[in-house]
Every structure is written in C-alpha cells, then in structure tokens.
C-alpha cells in the first residue's frame, strides 16, 4: 500500500477501531480520532516536501498506485496527485486534524460523531486523489452519508430540512454526473482520467461533447456552488455543527472547483472555451450578488456562509478566464478560502459556544472580554476581505491579474473589474461583522464569557500561521500549482 492510500484510508482504520472496541471513554475516542487524522497530516506534509518539482515532472502524476479493480468495465483503483491535487489533499489533511480539535467540546453521541467525521475525511481525500472516474464518483457519493447524519443529528436550527436539502441537491448533481461519466466511458472505453484526456479528441462521441461537458459540470457547479444552484449552502453551513461547517466550507466546496479543473476543463478545453462567457457571467453574479446578500445577514454563521458564495465566484472566474495565471489564482483561492473560512467558522463557533449568542444585533463589545478570540477572528476576517500579506490577497490578486490579461475570452476585462467591486463589498460586511461582535462598549451580560483556552489556541495559531505563510510567500503553493496547471493552460490557448 502506497503513501497516498495510507493517507486516504487511515481515517477509516480509525473508524473501525472506534466502532469495534466496546465501551470506549469519550476522551479515548477523541484521542483515537486525533491520532488517525494526525498521521495522514504528517504524511501529507511529507508528500508535499518530497514532491518532485523539477521541470521534467511538469504535468506528471506522482505517487501513483494503479491496481485492477473491476476488469469487466476496465476500472482501476488508480490514485495519484499532481500540482493541482496535492495542495488540496494537504488542505483536507490539515483541516481533518484541526477539526478533531475544534470538535473536542462535542459531548453528544461522541462515538458516532467521530465515526462520521473520519469517514467524511476519507471520502474527500479520495475525491482529490482519484484518477479513475468510477472511483472518483464512488468517493463523491460516499461523502453524502456522513454529511447527512452530521447535520441532522448534531446541527442546530432547521437541521433536518438543511440536511435533506443538502442530500437532494448533491444527488441531483450526481445523477447528471454519472450520466456524463458513462458517456465518457462509452466514448473512450476508459475510466482513466489521463487516458480519456488523450483519447477524447480522436474518439467518436456517443453524444455531443458539449452535452457530456454540461452533464458533468452540473454536479460540480452545485458543489462549488455556482449561482443559481447555491441555495443549499447557506442552510447547510448555518445549521451544521461548527466542526462540520469548517470541513464543509474548507474542503468540501473545493471538490466542485477541483472537478471543474480536473474533469471539465482538462478533458474538454474547446468546449470550456466556447462556454466560458456563460460561466464568467455566472461567476460575476455570484461574486456581487453573493456579497450583496452577505451584507444583509444578521446571523453570524449565515453571514460567513453567504460570503463563501461570493468567494467561490472568484474560483469560477479564475477557472473560466482560462489563462495560466488565473487558473493558478483559482487554485490558490480554493486553498486560501479553505483555511480562511475554516478559521472564520471555527471562531464563529467559539463565539457561539462561549457567549451563547449568534445574532449580530445582540452581540457587542467582546474584544474586552475575549481579546484573543477578537484578534484571531479579525485576522481571519482581514484575510477574507483580501488584505495583502494574507493568503486571501495573493489568491484574489492572481485571479484578477490572470483574468484581466487573459487572451482567451473577449471582454473579460469588464467582468474582472466588476468582480473587483466584490472586494469593496467584502470590506463592508467583514468590518461590520467584526464591529458588531467585538467593538462598542463591553456588555455586562458577557462578563462571564471565557476567552480561548490552550487547546483552542493550538488550532488558532496553526490557521493563522498558514494564512500568513501563504500570504507572504505565495510561491510555496503557486510553484506547485503551476506544475499541474501549465500543461492544461497550453491547450486552452485558441
């Protein structure tokens, strides 16, 4: 078994241990979960360091494992990572471990909670590492089950409505995606993503390529999400428990962006170019319309949730601007949004847990009582509004520069400039939120509210360090992204 498989399946080993050993203490379960997410994290960092960055490896899948799985349909257990997927595997591994820490104060049905959480990690890691479309689809579908239970059991508010809504939206997308995968299989006779990319040009398509492209992208667009398929997101994010909101915003949405780059854009460069204007318009709508609605929110978590709609718009813009720089920017934005919004949700959860209040109209003055939470929350907010020297700026700037100077789509300059207004709106909602929660006179009702404890400091420091590291030295990630993007970008030039 290779390292990549170890990373993917160690959480499952944790699940088996937690499930089978009877009468485990709550603490032991949490420690087991921590260990079985920490080892994948360590291994993911190891892969990141030994990843071959030489120019000879540009566009090459590394750490590949290829075993025959279902020979009858030519399906393989085929995993591997390139410059695009490795940072996402790393992101999920980081979040996977930190979410266990964030969930340390869960006391309701602890055993089941961590079983579902670990299973969720494996399924997302599997999506990012799969090179076989059937395997990809399998991991994609598995993820729905833990999400459903996590939201409907440990959630808040209208949790069963939100959980069901999430499942239905995802399943509708999956149905189209499965049809698309089948069409690809019957066209090329292969399920191997790399092979399909090469064969698709010469093969006679069973249905028009454009149709296959759209079948596939609907599933990804729901997940990213793209306007007007986004309405599951605010409900799911708002009602999910804190830890799950972190994974949902941090890693799960990225399955959509990753799928669009890996499957839609890589396999169908010509179709992507033809339809780019449509998706760019949807991206601009998502950015501005999402930010506008964010400005109207009064619930702490719902505000952050809607901001994700806006921020994921930058990913879509970067992808369909179809230039090398913009695609790297989109990829970086996925990573950056993962750590920034992950931290935002973690901090929102902390405020809600410690202060017992999530209505922005009733919060205030907490900077006096909880200075540490205030500093870290503000920092995450600043990264979210794209302040330089945080990851958010590096990512958004690359998207803007790449999109504005892209030669692929006509008139993209105007769309890029409209999108940049989103940055001004972001300053509006983030600073308003911070002011509502932390500034103003200290309120007596919050006098007993505790600041972050040692455990919480651990993940806060980890997140902040990552945000600043990527913000100050973005080339740590852009160099590696570039290795995966460069070969794709070549085929996008008309």
């Amino acid at each position: 078994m290779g390292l990549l498989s170890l990373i993917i399946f160690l959480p499952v080993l944790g699940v088996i241990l937690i499930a089978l050993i009877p009468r485990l203490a709550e603490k032991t379960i949490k420690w087991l979960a921590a260990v079985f997410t920490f080892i994948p994290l360590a291994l993911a960092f190891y892969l990141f360091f030994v990843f071959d960055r030489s120019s000879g490896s540009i566009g090459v899948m590394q750490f590949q494992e290829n075993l025959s799985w279902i020979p009858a349909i030519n399906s393989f257990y085929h995993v591997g990572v390139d410059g695009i997927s490795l940072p996402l595997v790393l992101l999920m591994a980081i979040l996977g471990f930190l979410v266990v820490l964030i969930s340390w104060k869960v006391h309701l049905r602890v055993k089941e909670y961590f079983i579902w959480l670990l299973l969720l990690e494996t399924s997302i890691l599997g999506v990012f590492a799969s090179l076989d479309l059937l395997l990809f689809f399998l991991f994609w579908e598995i993820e729905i089950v833990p999400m459903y239970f996590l939201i409907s059991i440990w959630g808040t508010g209208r949790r069963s409505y939100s959980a069901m809504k999430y499942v239905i939206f995802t399943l509708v997308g999956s149905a189209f995606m499965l049809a698309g995968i089948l069409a690809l299989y019957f066209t090329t006779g292969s399920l191997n993503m790399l092979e399909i990319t090469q064969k698709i040009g010469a093969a006679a398509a069973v249905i028009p390529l454009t149709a296959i492209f759209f079948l596939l992208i609907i599933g990804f667009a729901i997940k990213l999400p793209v306007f007007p398929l986004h309405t599951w997101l605010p409900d799911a994010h708002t009602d999910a428990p804190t830890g799950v909101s972190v994974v949902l915003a941090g890693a799960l949405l990225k399955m959509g962006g990753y799928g669009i780059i890996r499957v839609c854009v890589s396999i169908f460069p010509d179709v992507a170019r033809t339809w780019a204007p449509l998706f760019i318009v949807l991206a601009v709508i998502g950015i501005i319309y999402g930010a506008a609605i964010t400005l109207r929110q009064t619930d702490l978590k719902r505000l952050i949730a809607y901001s994700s709609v806006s921020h994921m718009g930058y990913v879509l813009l970067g992808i369909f601007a179809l230039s090398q720089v913009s695609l790297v920017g989109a990829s970086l934005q996925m990573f950056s949004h993962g750590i920034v919004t992950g931290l935002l949700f973690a901090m929102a959860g902390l405020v809600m847990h410690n202060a017992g209040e999530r209505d922005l109209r009733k919060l205030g003055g907490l900077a006096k009582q909880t200075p540490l939470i205030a500093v870290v929350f503000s920092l995450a907010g600043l990264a979210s509004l794209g302040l330089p020297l945080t990851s958010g700026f590096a990512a958004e700037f690359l998207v803007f520069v790449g999109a504005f100077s892209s030669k692929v789509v006509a008139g993209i300059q105007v769309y890029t400039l409209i999108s940049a207004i989103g940055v001004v709106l972001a300053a509006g909602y983030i600073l308003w939120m911070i002011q509502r929660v932390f500034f103003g006179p200290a309120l007596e009702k919050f006098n007993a509210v505790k600041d972050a404890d040692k455990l919480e400091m651990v993940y806060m420091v980890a997140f902040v360090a990552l945000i600043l590291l990527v913000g100050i030295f973005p080339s740590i990630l852009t160099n590696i992204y570039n290795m995966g993007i460069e070969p794709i970008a070549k085929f996008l030039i008309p």
Partner: protein
Amino acid sequence: MIPYQLIWLIFFLPLISFAVIALVVRPLVKPGNRISGYLAIAAIGGSLALSIWTLFSVMQQASHEIAVPAITWLSIGSLSVQIGILMDSLTAVMLVVVTLVSLMVQIYSQGYMRGDPGYHRYFAWMSLFTMSMLGLVLANNLLMMFVFWEMVGLSSYLLIGFWFHKPAAANAAKKAFIVTRLGDFGFLAALLLLFANTGTFDIIALRGLAISGVLGGAVLTWAAIGIFAGAAGKSAQFPLHVWLPDAMEGPTPVSALIHAATMVAAGVFLVARTLPLFEHSLVAMNTVAIIGGFTAIFAATMGLVAFDIKRVLAYSTVSQLGYMMLGLATGGVAVGIFHLFNHAFFKALLFLGAGSVNHATGTFDMREMGGLRKVMPWTYGLFIVGSLSLAGIWPLAGFWSKDEVLASALDKQPILFVLALITVFMTAFYMFRAVFMTFTGASRAKTHHEHAEGHSIRHESPAVMLVPMIILGVLAVVSGFWNVTGGFNAFMGEAGETHSFIAGLFGVFAHPLPWIALLVACSGVALAAIMYNTRLLSPEKVGKLFKPLYTLFLNKYWLDQLYEKLFVNNFLLNKLFAGFQWFDTGVVDGAANGAGDATNAAGKALRRAQTGQLQVYALTLGLGLIAIIVCVLIFGH
C-alpha cells in the same frame, strides 16, 4: 555609501519591534510597564539614523540613485514579480520625513499614552504602521506598493479604532477603511490595466514606457486616473475626503503621524512616483490639478466653521494635500513634494499642540477652551509657530513651498491659482481663529469634565511631550530653507537656478507674487484677530450674515448624509441588496423548493391513479390505444 542591506534594515527594524511587542511584550509584560514604548522608539530611532545616512549617500551619487538588487517573489508563466527597493532622491526624502516625524510622535506618545490600558497595543500598531509606510516608500514596483498601501490602511483602521469601545471610534475606523478601499479599487484597476498592456509592475520600467510613448493613449489615461483614484482615497481628496475628519477619533499622536504627516501624504507620493505617466496624458494631468485645486478650497471652507480643534486641523490637512496635488500637476515632483516635506513638520507640530491642549483640558472643543496662553506658554508659542508656517508667513517653511505651488499654478492653471489664493486667506483665518479661541481671552472651561482625573487642573504638558514639539517647531521654521538656494529642486532633478542663501532669502521679494500671497495671508490673520481676539466684529453676527453658507459649511455640504444615508443605507442596503435577498429566498430558493414540492405533488397525484381496479386500467389502456391509432392516422403519412 550605505550598504544596501542596511537600507533593508530601515524597513525591518520597526517590523521587529512590532513582532516583539505583539508576541512577547503584550502577552507577558504587565500593562503599566513602558518597555514597549522604548522598544518602538529604539527601532524607529535606528531607522532614522539609517535614513539620514541613506539621504547623504544618495546626495553624493551623481545620479541621485543607489542600486539595490531585487528578489523574485512570484513567477507564474508570463507573470513575474521582482520585489526590491527603488532608492532615489524621492525615496530618500520620504524616508527621512517618515522616520523623523514617527520618532517625534512616538516619544511624545510616551507621555500622552501613559497609563492607557492599551499602551502595549498602541506601540505595536504604531510600529506596524511605520513598517508599512516604509515598505510603501521603498517599493520598486506598483504591486509591492499596493501591498503596503493596504497595510498602512489597516494600521490606520486599527489606530483610528484604538479606543474601540467608543462606537464613534469604531464607526470612524470602518468608514476610513471602506472609503479608502473604494479609491483602492481604482488603483487595483490601474495595476491590472498596466500589467495587461506592459507585462510589468516595475515603476522604472513603466515610467520608461510612458516616456518613450510605448504606453500611451486611452490605456495610459485610464491607468493614470485609476492611480489617482487610489491616491485621492488615501490623501482624502474630494469626493473621497469624508473619512479624514472622522478619523480624528483616534489618539491625537496618531492623527499627527498618520492623518497629517505621513500616510495621507502617501497619495501625493504615489502620484509623484508615477508622474511621468500623468505627464503624458493631458486629461490625467488636468484631473489631478482640478481635483487638487478644488479640494484645497473646498476643505478650507469647512475648516472655517468647525469647533473641534482637531477637525479644523483635519480640514486643513485635506486642503493642504490638495495644494500638493495642484503643485505636482502644475510644477512637477519637486514642487509637490517640497510642500509635503514642509507640511509634515508643521502639521505634525500643530496636531501635537492640539494633543497637548487636550492633555491639559480634556476636550477638543474650542468653545470650552480660551485663556490657555498663560497656563501653557510653550504649547502656545509652538502652536503659533506652526500656524504661521501653515499660513505661509515669511520666512517660515510653509511660505517657501506654498509660494512655489502658487507660482506654478499661476503659470499653468490661472483659474485654480485664484482658488488657491483665496484658500491662502482662509487658511490664515481658520488657523488664527483656532489660536485665538484656544489660547487667548478668558477661560470658558466647564467645571466638570468627563476625563476628570488628572485633567481637572489645567497644566503645561511634561517635557517628554514638549521636546518633540520643540524639535518639530524648529523644523517648521527652517525646513523651507532647503530650497531657498534651489537645492531641493536640484536634488529632485529639476533644472533651475541656484543662488546663495541670503540672495534667495530676500531675492524672492523681487517678484510681485510673494507680496500678494503675504498680504492675503496677513489679512486672514487680521480678520481672525478682529473677530476672535479683539471682538470688534462678533462672529455670531458674521455667521448670521452669511447664514446659508455657514449652514452649508457646518453640515459639511451634506455629503456624509448623501453617501451614508441616501446612497449606502437607503439605496444599496435597503433597496437593491434587499431586493437581491428577496430574489434569493423567494425566487432562486423558491424554485428549488418548488421543484421539490412539485415532485411531491406529482407523486401524490400519480398515486391516486394506482387504484387497483382492473376496469380503470383497462379503460385507460383502451383510451391510449385509440389515441395512438388516431395519431397514426393523422400524422402517419
């Protein structure tokens, strides 16, 4: 010559101070300890020493430049960003201004902020600001400049909102950030436009392309206007000036450093840095001149009627920044930057004076002051020096640079010259209105002050606050002498005559313009004296006489209401964005839920068809068969 590694150290010293205070001092040292102040002062003192060394090194070079190797920060395909230092005469002058004023203000703060529970936080943010400002000044490319441009914006946000428990401070901080970001949108657009057309962010390369004409036409014009939009936001030029008066909610030393001497001048610096881009576009150049000239008089009118001493100074800053823009657009880098250079010293002095007054009285409202001349003679004397310099009285610093701005405006933009001359009158008037209201006459202090403790007895400020003011006071007198000989112009690379100091000092009166300007300024002082000192003319009566204008100025032209109430709240938030929200829940989500409901309803309806009665099935089957036969008969051929 200074080794280039030491030039980098100018930037890194405040950064180190910030990191040490934020990560070590604040969590571990008790709030009463003053170590963070000493640390910040030591760091900025080191930066000042290195900056002076750099200035002399640059002066010794024939080209007035020092080459510093750049480092690759980012490289993706066609995008490559090299970060480094552009070390020329402009940078060298700015370095000295920033570090010198910063040092004075931080020494002063040791006294002013003593006993504040946020003492460590204050010096951490101050160091962060100085670091960012130095990064902005040193930057060799527009992207790096933009990065630190935003960082000074952040520092400004943090320091305006330093007393975040006051809602007014928190609001002002947010307003400052968002309004300047609106301008930054233009700066960002300019960056994108320039990169898409040239493939570089490097300032020297861009200037070269503009001069050679490769970069020209509409692209150049729009890029220049975009850059100016950013500059207008940061330098509080009309119509983005609204944040600066509110920013006075921050601690007064912050206002002196950030909102008078350095950060707000960053916009002027940016335009000076990229001036060749403006020079090759008449539209852009005229935009700068008109906005600058208009802002100068526009802000001055509001300064005439303000009662808060800091707000008077804030409007004055906006107005003087307008002068600098006008100077850049009509006279070039040397004229604009020379005014920036002098203004930094006398305006910082005036703000520190206002802070000193506040320290003694606990208020900024001039209606509650009066008679402070006897209690605080040093502050009074220094405030007078600053005011005379600002009013442009010979031979103080302000006279020399203002005279150059007026002369070049007369040459290129006669209409704006007239506005600028009227502004000279207003400037002299509002400054001496402030002097007389604050320091002369009888005390109008209320018996009970909110800041009762320590402030109940009016007193002169301690030496730690007075000494920096005295140093700035000396500079407010002498800093203008640099160009009496024409030396500053020559250093900035402008061709022009140079002469001996004495000849320059008196020779200036060979022209009629300085006479006119002096006369106008003196009449402004005289009118202020008649109205507020001798009270020969009652200010209330004058106010009634010009009631419509007075109301207009006092309400700041209702622009705050227009922006905040009408546009942002009424239109954007409650109409447009509320409409989006309605659309999102009603239509988009409604459609999704509707599709779900429809599926449910269809299921229910179909279930009703499954009656289990064979007769019904047979009937349906028969009807279907007939329908098919009919269809085939009709469409079959």
